[in-house]
């Protein structure tokens, strides 16, 4: 569907040039929700803006449906852009137009007639749940509603691809959730491929099927979301994953005696994926190593419909036995464990 080949972007400045994208190769398949995550300044915005050539790539190709966008002339590019809808962090709606007229804008540009426009606008407003706001102005809407208008507008010319530039970053968590639900709906109902960029792992977790991790202008890791979550390899990725998982660990556990005084035992976090049974795992530990295991916390989340669990257990008893038990857990394929210490940097074993 979309093939990005050796994409480079250099911003030439007065004093020195900024190399924002350093040769990116990615493939986005038809019907995917592809997420690109990265810390601030990694080049995410540059990347997504290069996809529809809002920013001209310094080198490389953007091939959408077999058509190389970088090879098109201005007029052809304008036509090609109608196949690529885009939504923005700040919505970018026209304040001078009503909701309905905002959605009509791309249709006017595509020279649709009045009747077609009216029909399509009603259909789209229905789809995004704003049929009753057709005659309101953007300034009378909440952020979430404005983004819905943005989505309706982006879909007006039946694009094959929807580009989302930090589309939920200025929304509160609840609204973010509802917008992401809407995007997933659109992806499923209309079969539109979605490419989104974000700095929030929550967004990736919630709707993406594939994810690429961008760091300093380079893709350092790419794969299915579930794999990235369970087997992150690069440090940036681990940090992103950890942030979202650690958010689940109750703060007070960090003051446990086993954390502050390691001679009393170990506090460990076990992450498991799918139906890999954790119960036998814990009871096996107790049997095989003659140690005590005390389950302090458990939580199951879902990524792409696959259960993804976190368990915090306290191991007490003979320290050597505890170490052997931890080693044994490391061997296990389905789980990932982590020893929680009182330091900020939790040591993670993969």
């Amino acid at each position, binding site marked *: 569907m979309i093939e990005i080949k050796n994409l480079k972007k250099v911003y030439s400045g007065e004093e020195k040039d900024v190399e924002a994208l350093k040769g990116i190769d990615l493939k986005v398949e038809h019907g995917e929700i592809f997420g690109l995550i990265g810390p601030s300044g990694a080049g995410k915005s540059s990347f997504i803006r290069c996809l529809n050539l809002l920013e001209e790539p310094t080198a490389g190709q953007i091939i959408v449906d077999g058509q190389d966008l970088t090879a098109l002339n201005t007029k052809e590019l304008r036509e090609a852009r109608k196949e690529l809808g885009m939504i923005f962090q700040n919505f*970018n709606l026209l304040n001078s137009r009503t909701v309905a007229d905002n959605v009509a804008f791309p249709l006017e540009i595509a020279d649709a007639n009045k009747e077609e426009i009216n029909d399509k606008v009603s259909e789209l407003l229905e789809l995004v749940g704003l049929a009753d706001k057709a005659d309101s102005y953007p300034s009378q809407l909440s952020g979430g509603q404005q983004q819905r208008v943005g989505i309706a507008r982006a879909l007006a010319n039946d694009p094959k691809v929807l580009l989302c530039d930090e589309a939920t970053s200025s929304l509160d968590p609840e609204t973010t959730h509802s917008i992401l639900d809407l995007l997933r709906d659109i992806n499923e109902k209309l079969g539109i491929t979605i490419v989104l960029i974000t700095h929030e792992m929550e967004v990736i977790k919630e709707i993406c099927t594939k994810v690429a991790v961008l760091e300093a202008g380079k893709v350092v890791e790419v794969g299915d979301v579930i794999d990235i979550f369970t087997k992150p390899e690069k440090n940036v990725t681990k940090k992103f994953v950890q942030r979202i998982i650690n958010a689940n660990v109750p703060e007070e556990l960090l003051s446990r005696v086993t954390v502050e005084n390691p001679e009393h035992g170990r506090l460990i976090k076990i992450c498991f994926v799918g139906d890999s049974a954790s119960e036998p795992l814990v009871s096996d530990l107790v049997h095989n190593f003659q140690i005590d295991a005390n389950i302090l916390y458990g939580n199951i989340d879902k990524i792409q419909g696959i259960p993804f669990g976190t368990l915090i257990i306290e191991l007490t008893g003979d320290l050597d036995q505890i170490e052997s038990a931890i080693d044994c857990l490391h061997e296990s394929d389905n789980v990932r464990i982590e020893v929680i210490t009182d330091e900020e940097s939790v040591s993670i074993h993969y």
Partner: protein
Amino acid sequence: MKNLLAFIIKDLGLLWTGIQQTFYMVGISMAISTLFGIPLGVGVVVTEEGNILENKYINFILSAIINVVRSIPFIVLMVALIPFTRFLINTSIGTTAAVVPLTIAAIPFIGRIVENSLKEVDNGVIEAAQAMGATPWEIITKVLLPESLPSLILGLTITAITLIGFSAIAGAIGAGGLGDIAVRYGYHRFETVIMVKTVILLIILVQGVQTFGNWLANTLDHS
């Protein structure tokens, strides 16, 4: 009471002619200068570096036009334009003759105002239009101008008020209008009453224009 009425009615004919002439001069020059000033301002903005029709040379020329004409005081411009005015309408004296320098002065004035208004339009909105495949013409007519309309209206209001002021200066070349009456009767003939009356009328006129402009801009502003 009777005295007051008589006081008001006296000179009414004279003042009415003045009002008509002022409206005529300001109205015509506003209309023509808006016609030229808006394209001028739009041209400066869109040819700027990084904008939709980036063009260094055109941008330089248009900016130069605005800056040069704007830096000439109106009274100097008016005198300097006498040959041009004579060439255009065969006379350099009278109400119609005054329209020429007023228009020439107002075009770059409006150009600058349009430039400032268009620059207030959020760049993200322009990008959104580009991402939808809009042509530069569509961006100008469907995004830049409509989005800055309230601000443009306020700018045109300022222009109209400035032109009312300039039209009084144009009285010096026998342009007529309220300003001319104030100068002729008040200054040359010491008829203070007429002068006070014209001043009051001018204040009412300017206030009226400003109030109408504010109201219109407010009504059209949905942001």
